[in-house]
């Protein structure tokens, strides 16, 4: 048997005959995992910590995509373009377009990596910071950092989105979802202590580059358009052992924030074996509708759970950030949902493709049990390509976002903007921006089949806001 043949034989034999995890070990793992939950006391907030960063790189979900065209625009930040306008969610994008964000130009250079912060926005709920990084090679991403507000470590949930826009340019937005009140004006210090290089030559483990990149930003809270609604009696919904209770709703020009608590039993889900449990993941969240029944775009959800020792109930404090509204609605409706995602390696994504051809429009593509998208128009412009489509289904934003283009050699082209932009609430019309293409270029529009969303109607909750 040659070397490759022996390798294949050994791999097959060893993988087919792996050792079962002994009960002694399994039991210890279960008790260890359970203890992690019990360590938190009732009503005690989970400390997010100053560096409790949830690093959410947009480039991960778009791995394998190319983004020609926007590198040039971003290199000129902040003079000609805004990261918020190109990569922001609806809140940061519209606020930046309206001139509500503060343009800055603070650069720190170390170890051949230049990081520039060029835009800041604070509305009392979230601080957003736009940044651009230029490097001399490698795939550099921000890593370890410390944050200070007026010299005190910041307690916030941190999300970083970003995208490599060329070989030596990375740009994105850092969002700090705040858990505490900050002054109307303060000094924000961001001290990066290391960057990571994800170049393929380092394998799957990035190389850490230690250094110092320090920023000192003056931050001012938006003064106008902020309305906070609290309740003498909290709006509540109860069903079986589950309860939702709303504490506060905040409307700002950047976001709509809902703070609520949920209480639910700790007991494991019935009728799901351990084996099944390892092959699926149940995503839970909230859909929110305005007083016209229009679903609102969910920007982020953060939550912290706590369980009193010996209690069979778990309490979770949630903050849901949604797209901003132009007016204060009479009420909002919250509907909890679950989606069961398969993590079974045997189940592969099912992509649905159609040739993009002006003459054959409109084209409808199935998204499985979730619904459909119908491409209605393509505009080939000098600096970008605009794809227009309508979505049918119960989760239009999620559906609208699951679209990309492919070239004739299978090259995948991702959207330039952070997400599809909704054009018409009632018709669920969206527009997605792609890099520029020639009109005669062979392209396919691609989406994927999705798991159906399941909602718990009994826990649907109306939040009155006109009092």
């Amino acid at each position, binding site marked *: 048997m040659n070397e490759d043949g022996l390798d294949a034989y050994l791999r097959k034999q060893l993988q087919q005959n792996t050792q*079962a995890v002994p009960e002694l070990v399994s039991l210890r793992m279960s008790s260890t995992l359970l203890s992690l939950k019990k360590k938190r006391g009732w009503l005690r907030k989970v400390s997010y910590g100053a560096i409790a960063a949830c690093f959410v790189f947009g480039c991960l979900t778009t791995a394998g995509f190319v983004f020609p065209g926007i590198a040039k625009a971003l290199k000129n930040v902040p003079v000609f373009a805004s990261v918020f306008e190109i990569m922001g969610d609806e809140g940061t994008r519209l606020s930046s377009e309206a001139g509500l964000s503060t343009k800055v130009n603070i650069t720190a250079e170390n170890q051949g990596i230049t990081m520039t912060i060029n835009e800041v926005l604070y509305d009392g709920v979230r601080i957003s910071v736009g940044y651009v990084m230029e490097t001399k090679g490698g795939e550099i991403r921000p890593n370890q950092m410390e944050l200070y507000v007026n010299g005190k470590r910041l307690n916030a*949930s941190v999300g970083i989105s970003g995208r490599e826009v060329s070989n030596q340019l990375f740009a994105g937005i850092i969002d700090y979802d705040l858990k505490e009140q900050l002054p109307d004006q303060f000094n924000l210090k961001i001290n990066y202590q290391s960057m990571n290089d994800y170049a393929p030559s380092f*394998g799957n483990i990035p190389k850490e580059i230690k250094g110092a990149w320090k920023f000192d930003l003056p931050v001012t809270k938006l003064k106008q358009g902020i309305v906070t609604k609290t309740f003498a009696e909290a709006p509540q919904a109860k069903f079986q052992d589950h309860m939702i209770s709303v504490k506060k709703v905040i409307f700002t020009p950047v976001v709509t924030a809902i703070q609520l608590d949920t209480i639910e039993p700790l007991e494991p889900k019935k009728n799901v074996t351990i084996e099944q449990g390892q092959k699926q993941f149940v995503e839970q969240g909230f859909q929110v509708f305005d007083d016209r029944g229009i679903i609102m775009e969910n920007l982020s959800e953060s939550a912290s759970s706590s369980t009193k020792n010996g209690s069979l109930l778990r309490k979770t404090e949630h903050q849901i950030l949604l797209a901003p509204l132009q007016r204060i609605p009479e009420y909002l409706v919250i509907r909890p949902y679950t989606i069961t995602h398969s993590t079974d390696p045997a189940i592969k994504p099912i992509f649905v493709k159609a040739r993009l051809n002006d003459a054959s429009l409109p084209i409808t593509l199935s998204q499985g049990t979730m619904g459909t998208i119908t491409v209605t128009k393509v505009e080939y412009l000098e600096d970008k390509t605009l794809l227009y489509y309508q979505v049918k289904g119960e989760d239009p934003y999620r559906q609208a976002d699951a679209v990309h283009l492919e070239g004739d050699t299978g090259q995948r082209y991702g959207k330039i903007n952070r997400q599809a932009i909704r054009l018409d609430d009632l018709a669920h019309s969206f527009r997605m921006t792609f890099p520029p293409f020639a009109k005669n270029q062979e392209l396919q529009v691609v989406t994927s089949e999705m798991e159906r969303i399941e909602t718990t109607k009994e826990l649907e909750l109306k939040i009155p806001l006109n009092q």
Partner: protein
Amino acid sequence: VKRGVDVDQTKIVRKAQRGNHEAFVHLIQKYESSMFRVAKAFLKSDSECADAMQEAILKAFKGIQALKEPDYLKTWLIRILINECQRILKQNSQVIPMVDFVERSYRQETQQGLEIWEAVQSLEEDLRIIVTLFYIEDIALTDIALMLALPEGTVKSRLYRAREKLAHYLQLGEERADKL
């Protein structure tokens, strides 16, 4: 949201990073078998494996927010576990063992399975860990080198030696079977 391992794992890791306990439990359960096999390649007793895995889980729980690339969760977890195994080995080397007892905890279905595991168990520890990571856990040699803080050439030469020994052992097994 696409059906598929990588996309969903990214989402689950993000949830775990935001403090979602269920997501963290799911991830650990997914890799529990891998963690046990790696621990077993270093440590003799199941209880030592449980100790190492427990410490690794606690460290992973504290540190998961610092994991930048959700795709690398498995290699990150195993690297933490290897550190714990090496710590326990170091502690063990400082005490005189009362009994050198090897637990045979695996349950094999076939004679071939038993034979190949006997072969793996017969390897020296430094070869056994390479075999576990490369053949069973499908981890690239470059990553194994980083995990064990060894030059890639050393990993390759150890894999070569392990392969030779396993081939020799299995050949002997076949010869024995022929004679029966």
